[in-house]
């Protein structure tokens, strides 16, 4: 509580704004994950959560600790770089696994098509 009270107003305003925007974006991404009808639409929700929502919260954290400790605290940038590197890898791996499993289970209603990558004989 003491750490919050010592923050000057010019820093408290952008930190609050970033936290509100970040929290809203996180909940919008989770709503997309829950509400969208098919898997290939659902995978877009967490992408928003990981890039924009996490980015806003990480920026708020950097700004808050830099002002509160009156020195440059930017080691949250390590998490930012790590997330930006791993989010596409994870999304691509889950999507490939989903396409592979849908084609193997012959679920054509899901709209999975792998072009020339995988070949399955129609039963």
């Amino acid at each position, binding site marked *: 509580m003491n750490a919050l009270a010592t923050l000057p107003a010019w820093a408290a305003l952008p*930190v609050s704004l970033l936290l509100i925007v970040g929290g809203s974006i996180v909940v919008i991404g989770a709503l997309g994950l829950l509400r969208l009808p098919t*898997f290939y639409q659902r995978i877009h929700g*967490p992408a928003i959560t*990981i890039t924009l929502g996490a980015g806003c919260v990480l920026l708020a*954290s950097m700004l808050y600790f830099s002002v*509160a400790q009156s020195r440059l605290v930017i080691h*949250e940038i390590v998490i930012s770089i790590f997330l930006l590197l*791993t989010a596409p890898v*994870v999304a691509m791996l889950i999507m490939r*696994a989903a396409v592979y499993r849908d084609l193997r289970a012959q679920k054509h209603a899901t709209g999975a098509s792998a072009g020339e990558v995988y070949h399955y004989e129609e039963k």
Partner: protein
Amino acid sequence: MMTTLLEWSIAFAFICIVLAMVLCAIRLLLGPAAHDRVLALDTLWMTAMLLALMMGIRFGDLIYFDAAMLIALLGFVSTIALTKFLMRGEIIE
């Protein structure tokens, strides 16, 4: 005045992140296919990392940054292992 604004926005972000975790948990429980559950679990890891960061801001302690870093790393590795399992049926071949 500004301290009150900061407290309320931190509370709002906490509620939003916990709500997002609940929504991910619902998708994890009722996801029709296995890859839906893996996607929901990955999102749950990411929101847990955001929750650790938020606790760091709330209590003004840099130790939560290490917890967030660890959660991000473990989430990445576990999701890679689960997708490998979905693709191939085993993890270490």
